[in-house]
Each structure stands twice: as C-alpha cells, then as structure tokens.
C-alpha cells in the first residue's frame, strides 16, 4: 500500500538549521535506500500558489499571497509501506528529527493511504 505523507508547517519559521537539514537528508537517504520511500519533494512558497476554486457554480482563480494562511504543506513523500504502522513510523521519524534539531519548529506530518495504488 502506498501512503502520501504531507509535512505541514507555519510558513514564517525561517531557515532550517544545518543540523536539521543534514539529519533529514540522512534519514530520507536511509528510507530511499530501504526501498520504503519512493518519491519525495519540497513544495515552493505557498504565497506564490494559485488556487482555482468552484463555488456557487462560479470558477474563480486566485493568486497568492493569502492573508489567512497559517499552516501550509511544505513538502511531501510517497511511501510504499507494508502496513499503515510502517508508514506512520517513517513519518514519526521526521517529527522526532525536528524535535531534536529544530525544537522551535511547529508543524505536523499527515499520513494518508493513496487509493488506486499499485497493489489496491
């Protein structure tokens, strides 16, 4: 089963400390090497995002920045896991690494199964 992992965070947290980046790179490298992570990427500045919305039968296209923006998705990973628990464990590591190397960071990691994946 595949899982999409979203990393959500406040956008105004500033630059990640070097130690965090290095530890995250190592952890991701490990998950890629183990074959459980099959794709990952960081998302660009949410203030530059474009939203196309259907509401009340009308389509509106809005460009950022948005004033109400709080937590945004900053990155994603796709895990090919044997179980939900395995995917959750992979995601939990991300949070543990932030806790250790960037304690001021606030955010969350959300793990969701991808339907219609290769084995469903």
């Amino acid at each position: 089963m595949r899982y999409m992992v979203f990393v959500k965070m406040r956008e105004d947290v500033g630059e990640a400390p070097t130690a965090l980046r290095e530890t995250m790179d190592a952890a991701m490298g490990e998950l890629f090497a183990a074959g459980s992570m099959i794709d990952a990427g960081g998302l660009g500045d949410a203030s530059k995002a474009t939203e196309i919305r259907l509401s009340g039968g009308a389509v509106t296209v809005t460009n950022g920045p948005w004033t109400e923006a709080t937590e945004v998705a900053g990155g994603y990973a796709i895990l090919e896991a044997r179980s939900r628990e395995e995917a959750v464990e992979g995601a939990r590591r991300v949070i543990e690494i932030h806790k250790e190397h960037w304690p001021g960071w606030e955010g969350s990691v959300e793990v969701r199964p991808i339907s219609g994946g290769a084995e469903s």
Partner: protein
Amino acid sequence: MPGAEAAVTAVWRQESARLIAGLTRITRDVGLAEDLAQDALVAALDQWPREGVPANAGAWLMAVSKRRAVDHFRRERTARRGTQALAERLEEADHVDLAGAVDHIEDDVLRLIFLTCHPALPPESRAALTLRLVGGLTTAEIANGFLVREKTMGQRISRAKATLADVHADFEVPRGDEREARLADVMAVIYLIFTEGYAATVGDHWMRPELCLEALRLARLLAALMPDEPEVHGLQSLLEIQASRTRARRGADGEAVLLEAQDRRLWDQLLIRRGLAALDRAEATGKAVGPYVLQAAIAACHARARRAEDTDWVRIAELYDVVAEAYPSAVVEVNRAVAHGRAYGPDAGLSILDAVAEDASLATTPLVASVRGDLLDCRGDHEAAAAEFRKAAAQSRNEAERRLLHRRALEKDPSRL
C-alpha cells in the same frame, strides 16, 4: 492493545536487518544474532506500549540486544572455549557510538545479504533466509508467499542457518574472482523472489504482490549499498519497470492481459520513472553491463512507449541480438523471435522460432506454441494461430495463463466455440 503491538513490530522490522547484521558481526553467529534481535523485539513489545517508542528506536534495540548477548556469553563462558574473545569484542563494541557508525552498519547489512545468499544453500533456502533476515518477514509470511506450510518453511530456514554454521560461512563481502559470482547469486535470489510473486508458475493466482514488493525493496537496498555495480542498478531498473505494470496485467475478471494488450494508462509512471533513472545510473557507471541491464533496457523500450504501436521494436530486436550473443539460451531465442517478428515482420520471427522450437528445454512449456500462434496471427493465418494457442493452453500449468490462451484461441477461431 493490538495497534500498539503493530506499531512496535513495524519499527522492529525496519531495524531488524541492521540489527541482525550488526549482531552477526559481533557474535559471528547469524542464528544467535536473530535470537538476540527477537529478544529485543520482546523487550520492545513489553516496554514501548507503556512508555512510548524511543526517539532512536534502532539504537535502543541494539543496546538491548547487546546486553542480551553479553548475558549469553557470560553464561557460556565456562562451558565453551573461545568465548573470552567474543566477550571482549562485545565490550569493545559497547563503546562504539552506533549513530556515528552508520557506514559500518551499512557494510554489515551488505555482508548479511551475501551470507543469506550463500552458495552452500539451495536457491529456495537463500530466498527464504534473505526474506527472513534482511526483509524482516515472519516465517508465516514467507510460507504464504511461497505457498508452503509454515512448518515446512520454518524447517527450511532452520536448516539453512545450520548449514551456514556447518560450513563456517564467512561474514564478508567476497573479493577478487569470487566476488562477481557471489554477486550474481545475490541478484539471482532477489530476481527469484520477484518472479515467484510476479508470475506464479503453479496455482490459480497470476501474481503475489507482497513478494514482488519485498524483492523490489531488496533490489533498491542492494543498489544503494553497491552503487558502483551497473548490474545491481540494472536489476532494480528491471524490477521497477516490471512492477509498474502490476495493475495492467490483470483484467476485470482477474484474467491475464499480455503486454501489448495492456491499458497503458494503468502503468505506474512513478515506478517507470524510477526504473528509467536506475537504468541511467547503471549506464553512468561506465562499466561493462550484463544480463540485468540488458533486460532492463528492453523493458525500458516498452515503458517509454505510451501506445503499443509506438514501441521501438528495432531497438528491442537489437538488444535481444546482444543478449543472444552473450547469453545464448532457447528462451532468449524465443524472445528474439518475438522482437524480430515485430520489427521485421512475422516471417523473420518464425524463422528464428523454427530454429529453436525442437529444443528440449522448451518441450514442456507453452512458450513456443503461444509465440508461434502470435506470429501466425500477425501474418493473418488465424486458424493456424488458434490451433497453436490451444496447444499452448494444454501445456500451461497456470490456470490464469490457460484461460488467457483459450480466450486467444477462441478470438482467432470462433467456430470452435
């Protein structure tokens, strides 16, 4: 609290190869290493649900295992000779900062793979032991994958461990001349696990996806551990691309769908992209390639074609010519016949097929008849094609494949309904 237990087991599985590998280096006994790793799992199952999963779970498990190892050798010290040295090695290993010794652990994992694929073991035992010790699967899961009883699989694994101890198998990645042959063995084991899942030869299931996933993981792991070996990337590439077709290989009723008839929108483009990237990495090594890179290059030709009619058959025919030259076999000739038939017309294919059709190794498989049926069909000779498909169906041992061949026969010759 089964949820918590599953979480602990998931963590343990992720760490188990590294755990067992590190413990095997310290104890020089893979069976003991596995027992110690299991002890750590038992301790984690007791402690983690109450106290939470430790931040560095791998280090926690290793620390517990090593304490058990020390206890074990203290008990044995008086009973066995030579354990003094082991106890010293353990105490020395205690001082090693595990987080700082990642490279070392990666080396150990590679050594473990070479150990579980040791030539002293029969191939099916290599596969089982690799899944157990490197993949972290339970005996029940492996038994299920290979369609044997759990007890049988348990005995197979125990025997394999005993054999490794009997032959004093080295915990080393071989060097020199031996290295190439042993690496070929390792890759063959991973490929065997994949094909066991991908094209179940016996029974009514067309594939067992769990085995494919495990093989793919092993191939990815091996490629990460041996980045300078083109064939290892080739193996990964081949498996990624083959796995990309999983959803397209079965129709709505579970029937098999052949490559050219597959709905390519169902191909997994993420796996294809990964497969093509692995093939690029193989070629970037600049070293001489072997059978896996060649097969991956062929698979890549199919993967790149968004429609079946876009397939670069001339390139595939050329690649099969290279394969046939370097690794001649009857099965390769059959595949070469298919490629030449597509590239240069059915007669070109049939002449290659005729030259190999009487080969004894093909006598019991449906391969020749089904390919001949296909080539005759391309030539417009539908009745003769139907007869070949019926012949192939009679030779098939796989229920899903048999149904497919019967269906093809009926499509070509509906009068036989």
